[in-house]
């Protein structure tokens, strides 16, 4: 009996429990006035039958694989397998696939022999797990159905179940984040056991290529991340923001303060389309159109310019970020009460004076929030910089020069074949963690700024 079968059975039991609960409640209603509508009695039985059994299956199914594997390995056939991890894994996974019918025959002869053993344990543990899930569902259904009485508060019971489900849903996002952070953290610690943290944090040389042979040049690799973070900030937080903040803010001001309703209803969706353009499209726009133009411009000024420049990537990224800045600013400007504007206009201030001196200061928290959101979006952005910014880890302030960013390097480190215990690969996790921490700090600063400068106007 497989878990799929158990799952279907649980769903059926729950559905039946729901219908029975409702019809029983209807029968009761003929005699007495119900506390809850029949549908709630049905839902109560349904949830009791469904949720515990589903939870059990969710926990059991990953566990079952481990149990089966352990059991197989402890049999005489299992003991006979080669001790080397990779060879053994190849055989066991083939045997598993044969046992579950995903494959006709194995490449390794041992696997065909092992398949019946797998089959046996799959059936055993599937039976245990599936059977228990079905028992849980039946018990839940019985519990729900025996509660059906006129004065039973099924409505409140359903409410508690729903609250529990909502809490569970919100916890999934939080726990996932926590899991990601922890995995980054452990890989980073492994990296720091190979490369000193001080070199990573303060070194100005970045060349992670590990030599294959000891006598090759640059055999040690250099893991100073300063040039990467400089490149990231140069492109994402400086050049892109020089483009995005004024343009985004001004378009938000135009849309909220000057544009007639008709113009606004056309322009705002158009601006939001900009946020929907896939970043890879921006990427080739940056690499094929903007970058050559920027290089030619730089050369015409007599500045050394490379074909992949910080400026090209930053400009295009700035354009990409405009909708973020603009829509956050738009919301917070629109939230400034009309009374505030009237007060300023009635003092004889012009429209632009009113905006500069009253509306923008009052909307500042939202605007700052939008800008910081845009910055963290920009420094995490990958595609544009991969295509347009280049790979050379230069520590330069010349915007026509090529720089590289953290995200570009992570892509470089993790694409293609890698071994997961070399510093080269693990460096990607350290970079990822550092990027995460920076974004976190940005958000904290944003919150503090917002709180400090929040000017209550109600």
């Amino acid at each position, binding site marked *: 009996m497989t878990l799929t079968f158990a799952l279907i059975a649980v769903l059926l039991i729950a559905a039946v429990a729901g219908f029975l609960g409702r019809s029983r409640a209807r029968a009761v209603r003929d005699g007495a006035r119900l506390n809850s509508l029949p549908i709630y009695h049905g839902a109560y039985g349904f949830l009791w039958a469904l949720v515990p059994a589903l939870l059990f299956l969710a926990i059991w199914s990953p566990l079952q694989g481990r149990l089966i594997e352990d059991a197989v390995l402890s049999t005489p056939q299992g003991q006979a397998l080669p001790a080397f991890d990779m060879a053994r894994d190849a055989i066991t996974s083939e045997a598993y696939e044969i046992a579950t019918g995903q494959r006709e025959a194995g490449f390794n002869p041992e696997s065909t022999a092992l398949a019946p053993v797998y089959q046996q344990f799959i059936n055993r543990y599937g039976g245990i797990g599936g059977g228990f899930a079905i028992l849980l569902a039946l018990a839940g259904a019985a519990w729900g159905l025996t509660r059906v009485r006129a004065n039973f508060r099924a409505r409140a019971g359903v409410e508690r179940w729903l609250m529990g489900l909502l809490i569970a849903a919100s916890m999934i996002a939080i726990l996932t984040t926590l899991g990601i952070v922890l995995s980054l953290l452990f890989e980073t610690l492994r990296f720091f056991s190979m490369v000193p943290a001080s070199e990573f944090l303060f070194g100005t040389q970045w060349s992670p290529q590990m030599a294959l042979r000891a006598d090759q040049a640059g055999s040690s690799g250099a893991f100073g991340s300063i040039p990467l973070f400089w490149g990231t900030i140069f492109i994402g937080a400086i050049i892109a923001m020089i483009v995005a903040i004024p343009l985004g803010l001004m378009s938000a001001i135009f849309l909220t303060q000057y544009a*007639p309703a008709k113009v606004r209803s056309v322009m705002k969706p158009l601006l939001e389309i900009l946020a929907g353009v896939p970043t890879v499209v921006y990427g080739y726009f940056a690499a094929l159109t903007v970058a050559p133009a920027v290089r030619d411009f730089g050369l015409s000024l007599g500045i050394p310019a490379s074909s992949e420049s910080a400026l090209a990537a930053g400009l295009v990224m700035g354009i990409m970020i405009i909708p973020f800045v603009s829509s956050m600013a738009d919301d917070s400007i629109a939230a400034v009460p009309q*009374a505030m*504007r009237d*007060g300023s206009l*009635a003092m*004889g*201030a012009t429209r632009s004076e009113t905006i500069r001196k009253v509306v923008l200061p009052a909307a500042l928290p939202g605007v700052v929030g939008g800008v910081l959101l845009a910055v963290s979006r920009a420094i995490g952005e990958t595609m544009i910089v991969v295509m347009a910014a280049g790979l050379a880890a230069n520590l330069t302030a010349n915007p026509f020069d090529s720089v590289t960013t953290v995200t570009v390097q992570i892509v470089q480190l993790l694409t293609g074949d890698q071994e997961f215990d070399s510093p080269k690969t693990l460096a990607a996790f350290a970079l990822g963690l550092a990027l995460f921490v920076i974004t976190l700090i940005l958000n904290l600063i944003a919150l503090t700024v917002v709180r400090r400068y929040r*000017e209550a*106007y109600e």
Partner: protein
Amino acid sequence: MTKEKQPITTNSSVPFPSTAVAAEAAQDDAGIAKEDTAWTQAPEPTPHAADVVTERADAPELDTDRTPKMIADKVSVFYGEKQALRDVSIQVHDDKVTAFIGPSGCGKSTFLRCLNRMNDTIAGARVTGHIELDGEDINSPDMDVVQLRARVGMVFQKPNPFPKSIYENVAYGPRIHGLAEGKADMDAIVEKSLRRAGLWDEVKDRLQESGTALSGGQQQRLCIARAIAVDPEVILMDEPCSALDPIATAKIEELIHELRGRYAIAIVTHNMQQAARVSQRTAFFHLGELIEYGKTKDIFTNPREQRTQDYITGRYG
């Protein structure tokens, strides 16, 4: 502030509570008693309200000896297709408080907003007719609306201090209009304005605190100080006390009384006792029309129009 029941001498049986302020106001009016008589002896109005209004607005016997600060002549306001105000003619005098009363939606606030062209800020609003400030047409292309609003200040229904410090709230207007030369000058303007608004003693030690942290009544006086700071000639008040408690209201009323004489004041109010207490001229609006305009005393004790009588005695509205 002592509440003293002191009915104004009247030939009508309509009683209304009065305060020392109103009593004093009544004495002020006594100086022009002659013209009072002239007004009360005016011919009986024709039944058509609009005609009556026109006749009275132009009536030479009302305030003959001075030129009105602001003259509104046949002002109509449209919001899109809807007409909110029909042919309103009124004068605002620089040494008097003019109260606009009437039921909700009667157009009194709309009319007030015409006087400093705040209706310009409402999309779809259209104003016709003629409004003069010291003989200048405020709707003419030559009139700079920014200058107009500096000369005709406004205080709103809900206190709306800017989310800035108390000092900056008052300094806002002088700063935009360049009225102060240097810090000392600005300090003087701020102090003078806050003193005139009766707020100085309460806030002088915390000028850098946010204006929004003050109580409702203090906020409203701050808004009055802000309006005063640019040295306007007229102050428009749109139900300045409707969001305030009785004590704060009493303070604002006292303040209005003190400001009278220095500025021409027009006040919209729902509170008829308030109109009676603070104003010398009252205009009664109903359904977008000006029904009756005259001396406050006359409006409240001897209204010529049945509708005015009904409204001030609380029969409707």
